[in-house]
Every structure is written in C-alpha cells, then in structure tokens.
C-alpha cells in the first residue's frame, strides 16, 4: 500500500520536474497595464532585449497565461478586475509586480482610490524595482522568476489557495462599497 | 324602314341608359328600348301585301301571302313582361327615394 503511494509520489515528482523545466522556459504573460511601468515592456520584448529568447511571449487571455504582470499603481476598481483575472488563470500561475506603487503605493500612497500594498490582496512572486523599472531590470526580474520556477520557489499561487480566507478578507475590506452584487462575480 | 326606326329607338334607349343618372329616366330609357324591340318584332311578321292570317270564306286559297301572326303574339307577351318589369322598377325607385331622398344614382353613394 505504502509502496504504491510512494511510487505514485515518485512519478509525480519526476513528472513535476519535467513540467518545471517546460514551465520555466515557456512563460506566457498576461499584461495588465495599469500604470506607467507598462511603457517599459515593449523595449523588453523587441529586438534590443528580445524576451522571446527566454521563451516568453504575450498572451491574450488569463486562461492561456502563466504570469500576470501588474505594471503600476492599482485603483480599487482595477483591483477587482485584477483579482478576477488572476483567479481565472490556470495553475501554476505567477504574479510579477512592477515598481513601488505595487509595493507601498508609491507616489499615490495617500490616495483614497489607490491601494498601497498589493501583496495583501494577491500573492506576488517577484517585485521589480524602479519607477519605472528599466528594461534591464525587467529582464532581470524575469530571469529571477525563471530561476524561482526552476527551484520550485515560485509558489505564490499555492499560498493564495492556502490562505484564501485571509486574502478574501482583505479584498473585501478594501473593495468595500465598490461591490456590485457580490464580492466578485457569481 | 320600320325596322330601322325600331333599331334607332333601341339605340336611343341604350343611349338613355348610358347617359342618365336619374332612376326614373333610366326606367324610361329601358321602356324606350323595349318599345323599339317590340316594334322590331312586330315588323318581322310584316309581309308586303300580305293578308290577314285568318282562314275566312273571302280568301280560301292557301297560296296567298299571309302576314306572320306569331310575332304579334310574342310581342303581346313581351309587352306584358315589360309592364311587369317597369312596375317593379318603379316600385324599387319609390323605395330608393324613400331611403336616399333622391332619384339620382350618383347621389346614393356606395361603390
């Protein structure tokens, strides 16, 4: 009995290893261009830095994407939609946050309409510093993400599932009266 | 000759029917037409120099020319029918006048 469980576990682990190899080298992005940081993505994608050599590329919908890029500050109205998009993504999924706005609100720290700390609402795997981050920083961030995936450290999505209640509480607290019917969707 | 005259009479009657709007005049036109017709029928029976078609002792010979008696009989019937129709038409005219207050067909309206 134990033996078979172990065997299955081994297979799962082996399978997981292979999968991680593929995942690390084929990262599809869903760009949620909320703020100014988005302007740096084209440089990172086109001939100067060529993101595609890392196997990265833009995708159209959250279903297909592996990583969600949050490029800048988040107003409450956008937050709802970010959460919706994040929840629609297929697992494993990663979240990369750009600039200080996602970390502490940046220059919008005292705005009533902007959230300050994104990691209270969604699990962030990688922060990329800079206002706005230069393309080098962006590429560096992605390289970090690839390394994390390879090392099994990019586990934000697992964290989110495990601590869903906590996240949900924070989300509801922040969104508050912006709810229309229920907190997200039916 | 009389035949032409009767046909002219008939045409006059038809002209009346074509041109008149007054109910009474229409009935008159109809009567004129009938009279023309009756005259025509009577004229059919006429044979020049013909004799009365009655066998009497005066003209025994069967080789004689006789006037055809049948049209007269026919016309008699025809006249009777004509009178009946005219009477009916006049009765209808009266009723129409009661109803519409006019004898003019065009003023009665309707399609």
């Amino acid at each position: 009995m134990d033996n078979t469980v172990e065997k299955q576990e081994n297979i799962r682990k082996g399978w997981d290893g292979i999968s991680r190899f593929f995942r690390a080298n084929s990262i599809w992005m869903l760009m949620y261009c909320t703020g100014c940081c988005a302007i740096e993505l084209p440089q990172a994608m086109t001939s100067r830095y060529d993101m595609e050599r890392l196997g990265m590329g833009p995708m159209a919908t959250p279903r297909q994407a592996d990583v969600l890029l949050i490029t800048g500050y988040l107003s409450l109205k956008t937050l709802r939609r970010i959460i919706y998009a994040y929840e629609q993504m297929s697992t494993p999924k990663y979240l990369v946050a750009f600039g200080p706005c996602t970390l502490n609100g940046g220059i919008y720290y005292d705005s009533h309409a902007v959230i300050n700390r994104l990691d209270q609402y969604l699990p962030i795997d990688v922060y990329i510093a800079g206002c706005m981050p230069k393309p080098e920083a962006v590429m560096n961030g992605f390289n970090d993400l690839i390394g994390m995936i390879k090392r099994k450290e990019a586990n934000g999505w697992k964290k989110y599932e495990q601590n869903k209640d906590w996240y949900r509480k924070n989300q509801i607290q922040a969104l508050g009266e912006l709810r229309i019917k229920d907190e997200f969707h039916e | 000759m009389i035949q032409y005259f009767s046909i002219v009479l008939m045409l006059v009657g038809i002209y009346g029917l074509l041109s008149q709007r007054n109910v009474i005049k229409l009935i008159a036109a109809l009567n004129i037409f009938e009279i023309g017709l009756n005259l025509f029928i009577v004229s059919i029976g006429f044979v020049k120099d013909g004799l009365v078609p009655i066998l009497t002792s005066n003209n025994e010979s069967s080789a004689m020319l006789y006037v055809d008696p049948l049209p007269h009989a026919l016309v008699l019937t025809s006249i009777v029918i004509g009178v009946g129709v005219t009477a009916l038409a006049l009765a209808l005219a009266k009723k129409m006048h009661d109803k519409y207050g006019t004898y003019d067909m065009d003023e009665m309206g309707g399609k």
Partner: protein
Amino acid sequence: MITGILTGFGILLFAFVWQTSLDGINRKIVGRFQKRIGPKWYQQFRDIFKALSKTGVTHGWVFDFGVMMALGGIMATVMFLPVVGYSAFPGMDNFFIFVYLLAVGMLGMAMSSVGSGNPLAGIGVMRALTQMVGYEVPFMIVILGIIFGHNTSSLSELAAIQQASGIMTWNLVKMPIGTVVAYISLLGMLGKKPFETFIAPAEIASGPMVEYGGKQLGMLMIMHEFATFIEVTLFVTLFLGGATTLFGFIAKYFVVYILASLISNALARFKIDQVIKFYYKVPITLAIVQALMVVFLGWGV
C-alpha cells in the same frame, strides 16, 4: 491493415516532430528578420508540453469532448497522408477525405470553444468559418482542375504522375495560375497574416482559443501543428510533385512554409468581410480560369 495503421502512426510521429521543430525554426527565422535572437528551435515543444502540464479549466463535457474530437479527427487525417511514398492506406488517400476529415477536427474545435460560453469564441468561430468559405472554394476549384486533368483524386497517384519527368511535370509549372490561387488559399488555411482575422489576439482575444489553458490548449496546439502539416503537405503533394526522398520533402515543405510565414510577417490583417471579398474577386476568378483551361482547352494535363 495493422501495418497500415503502424505506418500511419509513423507518419503521425514524423509529422509532429517535423512540424513542431519547423515551427520553432520558423520563430527563430522570424526573430532574425526582426533583428532579434529568437527562441530555441525546440521552443514549440516546450510550449506544448508546458501547456499540457498545467491545470486548466473546463466548462463542461463538450469543452473536453470537442478537443478530443478535434485532435482525433486531425490525427486520423494525418494518418491517411502519403508522405515520401509512404502511405498508410494506398489508394484510399482520396483528396476529399482530407477536406472533410479536416472538417471533423475543425468542427470539434469550434464546438468545444463555443461550448465554453465565451462570446469571443463564438465570434472567432464565425470568422474562421466565414474565412473557410472564402479560401476553400477557389482551392477546391483548382483541385477540380487537377483531378479532372489527371483523372485521379488519389494524392499518391497525383504525386507519382507529377514525378514522371522532373520539374516540368509539376503542377506548379503546368498550372501556374492554379498554384498561385492555391498558395493564397493555403495562407488562409494556415491562418497566416492577411487572413488571420479569426485569431486576432488584440481584437477578440485569440478567438476560438480564448478559454483554453492547460491540457486542452496543449492538445489544440498539437492539433494546430498537425493541421499545418496536412495543409502544407497537400500543397507540396499537389503542386510541387510530392517527394521521393525525405530530404526533398523536407526541403519543399520548408520553402512553402517559411515563405508563407515571411509573407505573413510583411502584411497587415484583413477584416473578415475584406477576406471574403478578396477571395471572391481575385483567386476565385483565377481558379475558374485555370479550371476552364484544364477542362475545355486541355492545357496542363
């Protein structure tokens, strides 16, 4: 029968490996054209297997069933293809089987994607089908000419006839107008750029593919590779005389595919009604002219 099926599996495997690699190479070439380095040649494999390894979502049984039907139908089609003289079922590689078996796959995919309940998928399928009306009719008319001219609709026989005396008996040479039309249709079939309306990622969020993630997406990517293989092989076999050697086949295939890709990268996208208008103006006229030439004048037979 068994050997036939095994041959079919072999062709299937070859098709997958070759076309997927070529796709990677193609991406690299396109990258170079854009002054980029481009991905590894095996990037396409990575993408497919990554997608397969993910945990996607499903919208109900038809969402999964359609995907299986799509992949199954396309794989069945590939197994009928004659490649380099290998044919799983000799004599049965009738042209119409490809047209209609391909449709099974398309139908499965359309069903599955619309089954997701996403209207963008519906719009994508609508555009795909509309485009199909555009490119299939001229293509089929050209094929009519070929079949009528050579009096057979078997692909391997058609290839054999063309191989009779070198390049001069290729349909490319004998029916140049038809070849041009068929190539334009091929662009539509492959969904290359001027005729890429049904995917249009920035407009309808990649159309039919909008709801796929995980293994369904992976399977559809495999299906796409197979479909591409079928379409390009059809073109190679029908117009470039097929191939007797693997190298010849690969070379012809490479040229046809990369050319399509380069054309695609140089052009902008049509609107869907422009697609139809285009196909029903130029290619269909040329196709009919070609067919009439074959049927009534006997040219190119």
